[in-house]
């Protein structure tokens, strides 16, 4: 199916998310849609898949102008989109999840559904446990399920939005293989939205680059990475120099720690982090890194083993006790698990303090807040509420709330959803901290970030910490292999 988008415009208030974009996608090809955060890729694809209407512009399928009023009507006309977080129903059984919205019959036809699921799975090399609930599946498996549903629903055009974040390298290989099959053998049109250049180089035939809502240009793939980067950013962003650092005595000592929850068990973890060290945890979502970090923060109690902080046994300490002992924990969800929407910056500053006076001195709190706004370059006023800030500024605010001298900072996805400038700024702040002797442990699904920023990396796979490697001597491919379990 030939897909053309002509002069698509979409504005959110004053922001021009899509500012007159015109592109053509031919069947039998795999296209890459590149651009940094905020370039407008997701917005455009949401319009193309029927999730939201454009403010102006038209979509043509095989030359006919088309209007979608919902994702379902888009799928009925052949366009389906696989989201980073698939639109499935976690508590449902797989078969019920597959059947929801499939047709208009009142009765559910389980036999046909089972047959179709098995057929599609074998065709593309997926392996699914049909009796399970959706929420027990890994992200990669949920993606496979969603792909099957889209294909069974008649998709001729498949859009995949950042599909490889958080899936194993085996699953990625299976996914890419299936994409090639769909394009070459079945003549479908595939669009891969990504910011990962290596994947686009590996998979795509052609790349469209967007920047700040506009279409910049297209390139045949393969091509030199620098050309892509130049078009994406306008200029090559300077690689921040990683300063060499002299590491000192151990700060965190994890000895034979085993943790179990009803979803996951992590066994026998051993690692030591020294003052000023940046320690990255690599692995798929749900492999145990988050659990380990939460245990170090005091949010989860380990079943066995010991955690020693600066010589003190903090194994069974509560979160608040660890926090008072200068262990900081910043979760991934800034507004869900960190900031309070509706509270002002000043109120956050007062709340986050270690000691609380009975009565609040609002005047001095405001002065304190202004100082932190200045120091951390937060775009906002003391009386702005946390939800009024952009993501990058929220992250800076979270940093601004930290105590001045900390022993250990635990970060989940510190640069999630941030553009390059904000990312560099956050890491500058973190490197300033490590110069003070603070140890830093962080999780990131982005292997490049882990390799670039860490001193050492721990690899997690299926609840086991398989090894610790030196960041300087490893590469993204090697790490990927380790994560995939190939020791």
């Amino acid at each position, binding site marked *: 199916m030939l897909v053309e988008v002509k002069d698509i415009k979409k504005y959110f208030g004053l922001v021009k998310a899509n500012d007159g974009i015109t592109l053509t996608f031919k069947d039998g090809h795999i296209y890459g849609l590149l651009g940094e955060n905020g370039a407008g890729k997701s917005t455009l694809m949401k319009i193309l898949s029927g*999730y939201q209407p454009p403010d102006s512009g038209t979509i043509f399928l095989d030359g006919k102008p088309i209007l979608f009023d919902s994702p379902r009507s888009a799928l009925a006309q052949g366009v389906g989109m696989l989201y980073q977080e698939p639109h499935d129903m976690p508590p449902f059984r797989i078969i019920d999840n597959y059947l929801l*919205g499939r047709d208009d019959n009142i009765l559910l036809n389980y036999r046909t559904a089972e047959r179709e699921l098995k057929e599609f799975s074998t065709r593309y090399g997926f392996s699914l446990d049909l009796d399970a609930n959706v929420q027990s599946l890994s992200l990669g498996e949920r993606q496979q399920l969603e792909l099957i549903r889209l294909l069974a629903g008649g998709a001729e055009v498949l859009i995949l939005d950042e599909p490889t974040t958080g899936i194993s390298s085996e699953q990625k290989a299976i996914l890419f293989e299936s994409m090639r099959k769909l394009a070459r053998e079945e003549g479908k049109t595939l669009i891969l939205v990504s910011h990962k250049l290596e994947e686009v180089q590996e998979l795509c035939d052609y790349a469209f680059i967007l920047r700040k809502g506009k279409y910049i240009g297209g390139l045949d793939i393969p091509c030199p990475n620098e050309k892509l980067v130049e078009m994406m950013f306008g200029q090559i962003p300077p690689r921040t120099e990683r300063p060499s650092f002299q590491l000192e005595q151990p700060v965190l000592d994890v000895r034979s720690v085993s943790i179990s929850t009803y979803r996951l068990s992590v066994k026998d973890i051993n690692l030591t982090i020294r003052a000023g060290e940046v320690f990255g945890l690599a692995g798929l979502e749900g492999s145990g890194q988050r659990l380990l970090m939460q245990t170090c923060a005091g949010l989860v109690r380990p079943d066995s083993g010991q955690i020693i902080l600066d010589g003190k046994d903090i194994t069974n300490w509560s979160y608040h006790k660890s926090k008072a002992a200068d262990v900081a924990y910043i979760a991934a969800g800034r507004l869900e698990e960190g900031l309070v929407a509706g509270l002002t910056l000043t109120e956050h500053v007062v709340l986050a303090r270690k000691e609380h006076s009975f009565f609040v001195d609002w005047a001095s709190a405001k002065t304190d807040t202004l100082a932190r706004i200045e120091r951390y370059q937060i775009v906002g006023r003391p009386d702005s509420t946390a939800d009024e800030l952009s993501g990058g500024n929220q992250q800076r605010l979270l940093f601004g709330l930290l105590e001045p001298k900390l022993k250990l900072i635990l970060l989940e996805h510190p640069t999630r959803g941030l553009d390059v400038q904000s990312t560099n700024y956050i890491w500058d702040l973190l490197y300033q901290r490590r110069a003070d002797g603070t140890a830093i442990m962080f999780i990131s699904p982005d292997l490049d970030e882990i390799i670039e920023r860490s001193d050492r990396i721990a690899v997690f796979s299926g609840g086991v910490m398989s090894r610790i490697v030196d960041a300087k001597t490893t590469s993204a491919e090697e790490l990927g292999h380790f994560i995939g379990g190939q020791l």
Partner: protein
Amino acid sequence: MNESELIRIFSSIILQAAPLMIAVCGETITERAGVVNLSLDGTMLMSAMTGFVVALNTGSVWWGFLAAAGVGAFFAFIVSFSSIRLRQSQVAVGFVLTLLGDDLSAFLGQNYTRIPGPVVKFLPIPILGDIPILGPLFFDHDIVVYFAFALVGVTWWWLFRTQPGLHLRGTGERPEAAFARGVNVNRVRYLYTLVGGALVGIAGAAYSLDIKVGWAEGYTRGLGWIALAIVIFGGWSPIRGALGAILFGATKALATILQRTFPEVSVVAFNAIPWILMILVLLVVGSESIERIILLMPRTLQRPLRRILRAAPPMALGTTFGEK
């Protein structure tokens, strides 16, 4: 106590539980769609009063039930409309309606208190009613009881074995994903809130026209709250909810038996049983104890056990669905 007396007691438990089963089914489907209708207690009072008054004036219980269903649907509509269109808190609106229903039913029904009225006719099923034990228990009742049981079965089938049931459950779990699959989320919410409310209305009238015929101020007070608690206890499943309703119905019978055995203990103590039971029942469901027990079971049993004993609310319960 001999066998026939025991059977009679159980039979009366079933009768007492029937209206509660209907109300629990109704609220279960409302909450499965993502709407919590806290006005149940007030709705049941209003519908009990309305059902009785209309039945008295028309001479027919069926008009009474119809009017009561209308009242129930109307109250439910107010809750869903204010949540979906006006973006108000479902809990706030529901709570105000509960208080309003209590006062309004007392005011509007003031001329109808303690008057006899039409009753639902007794309707034993011919052959089935003669089966020993099961007969008097299940087939020797009136149409309200049969309706209650049929409703539980139909609700279960609708929820778990039909496409519209998937739509309903999807709306309550992840409305954005349901929307992406083509479900009109708000329309589904309106529909099942109205149906659920109508059923609650029928349940209210089942009291004033069947169980305890007549009307007085505060007649069914407390039952709506118990129904809400049973929905939670039932894990938002109609069958478990029905079992919960029967359990609560049993407490009344138990109270009568205990009262006879221990006449010295004051009657007020037995009034306390349903409320203590409510707290206990919610404690069991709300704490981590169920999950811990499941973890002790062998691996193969865990998945089906978790499915039966699950007590997690629909993920989108109480939320509003935004326009995109």
